[in-house]
């Protein structure tokens, strides 16, 4: 097979969790060019939010996507709080970080388990998912839901942790440290996993900066753009942590960033639990949202999430716009994929941790 031909990957394909269509031009087994077509799961959410009031929009934004479902309402609420000039109580700041980091750990574990699935290591996938299940149990026990936590509200958080819940959280987080360490060693050192991920989907530092790539995808190329550090929100500036950076620029580096961030997330939750101040978790009543504009950024599991909210003083927003990390990252696929083999397409695609339902909302 010497000549060039086209392979359709998607819109419905086993390797893709969500519908997106790659038109891959292939020479032999080597990818030459990729065309990305999207728009299969557009739900018109940006129009929908204009017909709901600020409180209802917390619920809608949470349904944008399941894996980063905490970050959407979180960022939206921060933008609204900026318009209203609300200062949330310190205890709520810490509780927001706890919800965010538990979600981040679960999301990253999900992504690396998908990587294991795509390189054909199904045992590693099931083991990673089993470890993640502990976090799902934690979410269900504390927030009452396995995916949509509903943790944040305008002016604070909707939940509080009592002593027993803190004890339970610490116990569960401790119990997954050892399995994750063992799993991380397999992702890092197993020879075939290395052969399948090392040097695959290379995205150089220059390209990362040029394309504005965000999140663990960029941090795998040594670019520090962690919003938690460069534009701190909630309690992140009060905690002791460092940005995880890898300079492999390939799929392996991105997976290692995610695995190390799982440990970091556990560490951050533990720090928060230790430093948790007393006091209320929410400001009294519901603030009136005045006329104005607000912008908020957070670090979602996939990268920077950006919300713009414009209010005309009524109960509904006049305009809302959000930019999700995958929108920036999938342009980078056109740089990552050429030169790799067909078998790597899904591995590379998974390495940006794509979220199509976020991007097409």
């Amino acid at each position, binding site marked *: 097979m010497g000549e060039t031909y086209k392979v359709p990957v998607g819109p419905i394909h086993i390797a893709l969790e969500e519908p997106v269509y790659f038109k891959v031009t292939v020479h032999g087994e080597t990818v030459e060019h990729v065309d990305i077509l999207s728009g299969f799961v557009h739900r018109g959410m940006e129009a929908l939010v204009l017909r709901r009031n600020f409180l209802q929009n917390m619920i809608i934004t949470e349904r944008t996507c399941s894996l980063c479902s905490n970050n959407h309402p979180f960022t939206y609420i921060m933008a609204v709080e900026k318009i209203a000039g609300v200062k949330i109580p310190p205890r709520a700041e810490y509780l927001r970080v706890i919800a965010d980091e538990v979600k981040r750990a679960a999301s990253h574990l999900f992504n690396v388990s998908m990587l294991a699935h795509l*390189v054909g290591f*199904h045992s590693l996938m099931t083991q990673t998912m089993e470890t993640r299940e502990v976090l799902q149990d934690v979410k269900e026990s504390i927030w009452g839901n396995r995916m949509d936590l509903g943790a944040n509200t305008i002016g604070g958080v909707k939940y509080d942790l009592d002593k027993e819940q803190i004890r339970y959280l610490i116990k569960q987080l401790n119990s997954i440290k050892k399995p994750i360490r063992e799993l991380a060693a397999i992702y890092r050192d197993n020879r075939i996993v290395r052969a399948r991920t090392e040097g695959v989907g290379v995205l150089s530092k220059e390209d990362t900066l040029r394309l504005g790539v965000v999140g663990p995808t960029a941090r795998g190329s040594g670019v520090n753009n962690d919003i938690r550090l460069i534009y701190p929100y909630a309690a992140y500036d009060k905690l002791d942590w460092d940005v995880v950076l890898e300079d492999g620029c390939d799929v392996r580096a991105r997976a290692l960033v995610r695995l190390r961030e799982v440990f970091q997330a556990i560490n951050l939750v533990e720090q928060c639990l230790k430093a948790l101040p007393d006091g209320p978790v929410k400001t009294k009543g519901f603030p009136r949202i005045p006329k104005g504009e607000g912008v908020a950024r957070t670090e979602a599991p996939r990268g920077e999430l950006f919300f713009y909210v414009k209010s005309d003083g009524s109960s509904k927003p006049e305009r809302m716009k959000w930019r999700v990390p995958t929108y920036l990252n999938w342009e980078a696929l056109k740089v990552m994929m050429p030169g790799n083999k067909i078998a790597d397409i899904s591995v590379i695609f998974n390495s940006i941790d794509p979220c199509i339902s976020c991007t097409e909302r």
Partner: protein
Amino acid sequence: MITLSASSVFAYLLFPGGLFAVLFGLLLLSMGRIAVARFQGRVGPPIYQNIFDIIKLRVKEVLIPEDVTNKLMFCIAPVFGFVGMMTAIFILPVSGVYGGTGASSDLIVLIYLLALPAVSHILGGSASGSTYAAISVSREVILMFAYEISFIIVLFTVALAAGGGDGAQFSLKGIVDYQITHGSFISDIKMIPAFLAFVIFMLATLEVPPFHIAENDGDVMKGYLMEYSGMPLALFEITHALKLLVLITVLQVFFMPGIAGASIIVNLLWFIGKSAAVVACIAFIHASMPSFRVDQAFKFLMIVPILLSLMSLGMILFF
């Protein structure tokens, strides 16, 4: 010389070939799936799952896509592999139970028969007109080129070893008899590299990780099976089950044909037990390995099993 007698028809159609082989092969497949599931912390399917799959496919409609390039080839492709495997089971002796055909050079026939399932994948896949099938077929051809070499070296090593320093023994029955009197090859240190090479060959031809490449779900979905449905697909599944059984039987003929007693029943149970143990080992490897990419697998197959089998061949020839 094989003559058409009642006993050979019985052996081809009912036992140990034919019906028995199909059912036993399907059960082995299910056992493999259950073992993999247990290694992964899952429950796995019930033991009769693969038999039910065949029964289900039997009643399903056969869909032939419009852009099939060669309709006839698409329809008859599964038959080649099936017939090849049925014949392979027929000529393979099961030590203490069934003597095979007793032909003097059936070992050579085996080389051709074992290649037939892959040929039928290649014919069916390339006739189906699907891009995924085309990619998967090209991978299968690449891998086949690599693993067949080591298989043939192993085969000649076994033939030479069974000759006992007096030429080569190309009769499967002769190989079994030699080992029953002189001890199994698996206990011979000289044959261990060849045994390992054969295991790698088995994994590659069964497309078990680390060689789950040609029909890898992650990129080419089901590959050459993509457009198949109904009875032709069932035939492919049966062929796969038979291939598993054939390879396990070949493994036993080559390396561990030991018998457990004089009774046929005891020996049959011993054969079944050994087969189940081999399936469990394959399942363990399956569960503990990721898959190579095709270029990596080709490199691996061109180096490791060939070197291993050459090592055994050298030791048999010169020591």
